Structures are given as C-alpha cells and as structure tokens.
C-alpha cells in the first residue's frame, strides 16, 4: 500500500453521555481523527450486537461502543444490561477469531469531551497498526458450500 491506510471506525453511543461528551469535544474545539462515524442511540441498552456485525460488514475496521459510566445511566440501568451483553459478545467474537482489539468498549460521560477525543485518536492509531479488517470483509467473497462439499 502506498497510500497510508485510513481506518474506518464506527461508534455506537448513547445520546445522554457519550454523544454529549462528543459534542463537548466539539464545543471545546478539541481536535481528533476524522475516521469515526457516530451512530446515536438513546442508551447503551439499545445497542444490539447486530449493529456491530453490520458495521464490520460495511467495512468498519474497528467499532467503539460507549455510554454512561455505571451508576450514571439516564435510564438507571441500561448500561448494566449492556455491560453483560458486551462481556458475552466479546467472548464470542474473540472465540470466533474477531480480534478483541477491534471492538472497543468505554464509558464516556457528558463531561468527558477530552476522553472522547483521546480515545478516538487512540483507536485510530491502534487500528492503523492492525491494518484493515479485510479478513471479515472478504467473507462476502467466500461462496458457501464450495470449500469442502
């Protein structure tokens, strides 16, 4: 590759904490990598594992899932439910060979604009090192039932 690889990152965030935190990064004019696309959901409780799979299918090289810190959830416990799902889903992805480094989870409050900006930069840098997630995207080229049958 002659062109430097620009990773595509999709972030699924809750509207009350991380989305507001990302807005704060903006109002504070903090600069961060332009590689992230944010999908706003009401709560981390609404973020389905299917969203992550679809983002990977659409060429995301990394995915960030982020919401309110434990105890801070606008909906009191959506993030606790989300945390359990993440634990399980993460184990599943890891077991099936989808690297844990590509699916990141964080708590970012409405006050943590700086944390948001830093994390996006960090994920962008890390993903640049990991390279594009072609392994997953190329699944669309493997035609079923042809390999061993």
């Amino acid at each position: 590759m002659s062109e430097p690889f620009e990773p595509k990152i999709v972030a699924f965030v809750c509207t009350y904490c991380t989305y507001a935190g990302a807005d704060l990064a903006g109002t504070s004019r903090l600069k961060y990598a332009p590689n992230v696309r944010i999908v706003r959901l009401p709560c981390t409780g609404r973020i389905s594992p299917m969203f992550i799979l679809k983002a990977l299918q659409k060429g995301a090289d990394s995915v960030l899932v982020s919401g309110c810190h434990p105890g801070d959830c606008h909906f009191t416990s959506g993030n606790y439910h989300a945390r359990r799902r993440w634990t399980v889903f993460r184990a599943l992805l890891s077991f099936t060979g989808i690297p844990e480094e590509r699916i990141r989870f964080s708590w970012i409050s409405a006050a943590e604009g700086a944390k948001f900006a830093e994390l996006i930069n960090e994920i962008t840098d890390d993903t640049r090192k990991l390279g594009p997630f072609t392994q997953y995207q190329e699944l669309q080229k493997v035609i079923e039932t042809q390999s061993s049958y």
Partner: protein
Amino acid sequence: MGIQEQYRSEAAALLSSGEVKLVIGFGAGSTADRRRPLFARTPEEAQKFVLDAACIANLSTYLLAEGLLSDGKKVGVFLKPDGIRSVNILISEAQLKPEQVVILGYAIENGKDVAALEGRNISDFSIGEKIRNLTPPPHVIEAAEKIEAMSAEERFEYWKEEFSKCIKCYACRQVCPMCYCRRCIVDVNQPQWVSTSSHTLGNFEWNLVRAFHLAGRCASCGACDRACPVNIPLRLVNYRMGKEVRSAFDYVAGENSDQKPVLASFKQDDPETFIL
C-alpha cells in the same frame, strides 16, 4: 425387570389412568444403533418404547410443539439430566408450566448403562448441584481449548472454514429446545439482520447470533452438533458461551427453574475490566 420394561409400564400406567395425554419417548430407529422419537397416546403404544444407551436425544424440544400444552393437560417425557436442565430453563422462560410436565428421568452411565432417576415432577429433581458439575464430553472441552490456544487469525480461519460449510438448513435451530421463538431473527427481513446471500458472511452472522442467543441458556445437550448435516462443531461455541457466563456472572443455565435470564439481569459489580 429392566429399566426399559419398568418405564414402558409406567408410561402405560400414566396413559391409561389419564394422568397424561401423551408420552414422548424413544422408539427403534432406522439402524440398530439409532433411536427415533416415539409419541405414545395409548398404553399399547407405550409398549413400543425403547430405553437404552442409544437414547441420547433431548426430547424436551417436542414439548414446545405448537398447541401441545395449550389445553392444560399433562405430557410425559423421557429426559436425561440435560433434558431436565432444558426443562428448567424453559420453565424459567415461561415456555412450560411445571405442572404439565411429567418426567421419566434416566441417566446414561459410562456410555452404556441406563439408570432411572428418582422423581416425576421437575421439583423432584433438585439437581442444581449436579448441573453445576455437569461437563460436556472431554472431546468438546479439548477442541474448545485447542481453538482458544490459536491466534485470532487462525481462529477466524478455522471458523470461516467451518461456517462456509453451512447450508442454512437450520436443523440446529429446529432441534434446539431453546429455539422456541415464533419468528427467528434469521427470518426477519425488515430489516435483514442476517445476510441471506450466498456468501459465508451470512453464515458467520447466523452462527454468531445463534450462539449469542444461547448464551446462558444452553443445556449442553449437544443436539445441534448431532443435527448438523455438515458437521460444524456448533457445540464448541455454545460451550464457550456457557463458560463465559459462568466465569463472569457465576451463572449456570438451568440450575433451577426460577432463574432470571442472564442477559436480562445484572449485578452492579459485574466485571468490566475490558471497558475503557
């Protein structure tokens, strides 16, 4: 009197007394070492039941046949501990009423001997401890550990190879007692979460989703493994999920019949070391 005769007469008694309207058990299969489900509605039919070490299927699946239990009548069913475990899960998920299920319990020991399990109602089987100690066959654990020892890339290649064999026949779903949804997510086309195109991506998605939906719900009966016509080791993923919910949340599916679903409950101090 051997266990087979004992259970034949018990099933017949249940039917003739009218306590149950149906007994689900095993009959002879297409070959000498295979058994197929047998549904007995009369004491005479009950005489055809076979019970031996080849009776490995988890018959609890058939309890969920649509309309079967809606008349409130009881049904008898031959169940191994894994079957009892699935009944526990199904009761906790409100798919079965405990009073409608009469259990003819048995266990296969050393792969050849069949022993009777005491009790008839689910509440008689206080087998929480036993279920906690239930382990899948050693080859499953071994295979799972082998996969865990691989690099992420190797793991991916391994599953890509396996999942590429999938012909989307959904036998794994049909045979699984936990797949009782009236509409499976794979059949949702608005939106089409699971790709139907003829590439492996859809298979990957389907198998991931199924494993996720079974996390903390799998009774580890191995029915999916046996049902798969292309021999994808589906059980490994489910085993790994069970291991995760146990280590992270100390949750063992089907330990009792009043558990809250593991993914619809939480503790404030659940582990979260991976969250930045």
